[in-house]
């Protein structure tokens, strides 16, 4: 079903119509979800809005031709990280209703300032670096020109870049995962009087001596 390469796309003011409309729609959805995310009092509603924002990011990736990356975004962020957030919410404050997120006013201003700064920084960086760059969406198995700013569309393209050109960062990811996993355990474990080694907290039951058919202690 692939269109012939280099097919003329209908343009309006130098912009491709279809992708532009899609980008605008995605942008609106993301902004609305983002505003809801920070204004709602209910943490679970906030998490649902966050899903909307993340889905928008995934859609943007796909619009830029990075299909694999887009679905990775869905799989990892929506499928795993928001689940973790929700678990966090439910495990600590399972009660229904408004969670009091009454951050002090000073904190809110600081947060707003940070948000504006980050926005400015990212926009500047992206415009400076990629402002005039055009992404060539390479369809199918078409060969990619070396050095050209093309989107690694297929999994194979991505694998080629990742496992040939970016070996060290890739291996570094495994160390990050290692650190994250060990960090998770360190946070969750507790010292136990009966054992020399600290263990992850978990419910305990007394072993009843009758269960093993023995008399009382000593």
């Amino acid at each position, binding site marked *: *079903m692939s*269109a012939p390469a280099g097919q003329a796309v209908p343009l309006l003011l130098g912009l491709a119509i*279809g*992708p532009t409309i899609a980008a605008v729609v995605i942008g609106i959805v993301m902004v609305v979800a983002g505003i809801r995310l920070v204004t709602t009092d209910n943490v679970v509603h906030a998490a649902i809005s966050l899903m909307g924002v993340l889905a928008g990011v995934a859609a943007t990736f*796909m*619009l830029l*031709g990075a*299909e*694999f990356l887009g679905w*990775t975004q869905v*799989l*990892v962020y929506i*499928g*795993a*990280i928001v*689940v*973790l957030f929700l*678990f966090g919410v*439910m*495990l*600590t*404050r*399972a*009660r*229904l209703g408004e969670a009091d997120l009454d951050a002090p006013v000073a904190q809110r201003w600081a947060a707003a300032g940070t948000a504006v700064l980050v926005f400015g920084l990212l926009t500047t960086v992206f415009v400076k670096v990629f402002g005039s760059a055009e992404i060539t969406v390479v*369809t199918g198995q078409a060969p990619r020109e070396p050095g050209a700013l093309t989107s690694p*569309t*297929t*999994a*194979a393209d*991505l*694998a*080629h870049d*990742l*496992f*040939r050109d970016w*070996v060290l960062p*890739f*291996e570094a*990811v*495994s*160390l990050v*995962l*290692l650190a*994250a*996993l*060990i960090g*998770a*355990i360190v946070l*969750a474990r507790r010292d136990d009087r009966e054992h020399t080694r600290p*263990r*992850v*907290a*978990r*419910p*305990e*039951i007394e*072993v009843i001596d009758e269960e*093993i058919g*023995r008399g009382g202690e000593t």
Partner: protein
Amino acid sequence: MELHDYLPILVLLVVALLFGTVSRGLSALLHPRDPTPEKLDPYECGIVPERDNPERFPVQFYLVAMIFIAFDIEVIFLYPWAVLVRRLGVFGLVEMAVFVAIVFVAYGYIRREGVFDWAPRKKLDRTLLLQRYRREAEAARVASGASETEAA
């Protein structure tokens, strides 16, 4: 990728949404409405609810979600690699073996820490029990030995 590959999926989404909303709408037309205070209560097997919802869950649920993220990311890296493994040759194999091995170290640690043991932990663990059996057996042996020597 062609974005219009996704158009049929959009149609499918619409069909599924229609299915959901139409059945909801039909039901709204057909179903009786007779709410009573008892029906609207949270389910509690017919008795009056006395206790609030549990506020705290075992931390292991959270840990599983954390570990899942790590493994999910690992699997995500495995997919493009799997597509290209033929062309990457030994280099690719070694690369991924190192990656998997490093994550496996973490896995071993987690496993040793008992994150995957969900049964309530017995306070008296097996080694302690064995020690106690040995002690008792030893005591019994000494006692019987003593009685034998006495008899002799």
